[in-house]
């Protein structure tokens, strides 16, 4: 039995499940901020939100699948667990880093927009 193929199957199930679940949560909870940024134009905000979600899926699932070609040779069960968790950990850390970047971007954008609206009104 080839351990590497086992690894790929477990890894892809875990990561794709995490990516889709987290994407859904971001999509639902980030909507408020995008609506606020688009000045309550909710149809425009929803379409933008959907496009961002698709881009997120493409980038992350693409990254997860590319990892197959950089996998070490796995020979036993311990190495299986450690390599899968190592790769999953890197992917989740990247997700976390981009997530905090996004929070920061939303924060600066909202600060700017409230500044503009308070100036014009």
């Amino acid at each position, binding site marked *: 039995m080839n351990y590497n193929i086992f690894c790929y199957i477990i890894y892809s199930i875990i990561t794709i499940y995490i990516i889709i679940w*987290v994407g859904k*949560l*971001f999509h639902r*909870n*980030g*909507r*408020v*901020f995008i609506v*606020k940024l688009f000045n309550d134009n909710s149809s425009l905000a929803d379409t933008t939100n959907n496009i961002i979600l698709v881009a997120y899926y493409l980038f992350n699932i693409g990254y997860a699948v590319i990892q197959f070609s950089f996998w070490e040779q796995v020979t*036993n*069960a*311990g190495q299986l*667990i*450690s*390599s899968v*968790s*190592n790769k*999953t*950990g*890197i*992917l*989740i*850390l990247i*997700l*976390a880093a981009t*997530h*905090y970047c996004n*929070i920061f971007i939303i924060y600066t954008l909202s600060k700017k927009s*409230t500044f503009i609206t*308070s100036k014009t009104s």
Partner: protein
Amino acid sequence: MKNLIVTAYLVYLPIVMLLTYYVAHQLFKNSIVYMKDIFNGREEIAKATNTLFKIGFYLMNLGFALYILKITAEKINTQGAIEILSMKVGGFSIYLGVMLFLNMYLFFRGKRVAREKDWWPRFPIKLSSFVIILIWS
């Protein structure tokens, strides 16, 4: 020998996940109060921000926990396995504590910024209108 490493992994994973779940649950159950304070009682946006921070917390900590799982020692006995596990779990728990304080710092900072924003723009407007009224009269 191989089995001991696998056993160590299988002990490590549930401990780490339960620890992360417990800390995140406690932190974000209580942080909704700060969020409501920051966003002036706007329920929807406070809840959304709280959930976003919660997801970020989970991602960062579980990612780090999975990243440091690998045991590099070649030969291992029961005592060595327990020592390695203690090192990893203890280190991770200290890391969790640091992250907890970082998130609390973010909440307090948000609270301070919200208070300044609330107070600061009104002051010059009032002052300028006062000056205009003085000139007119």
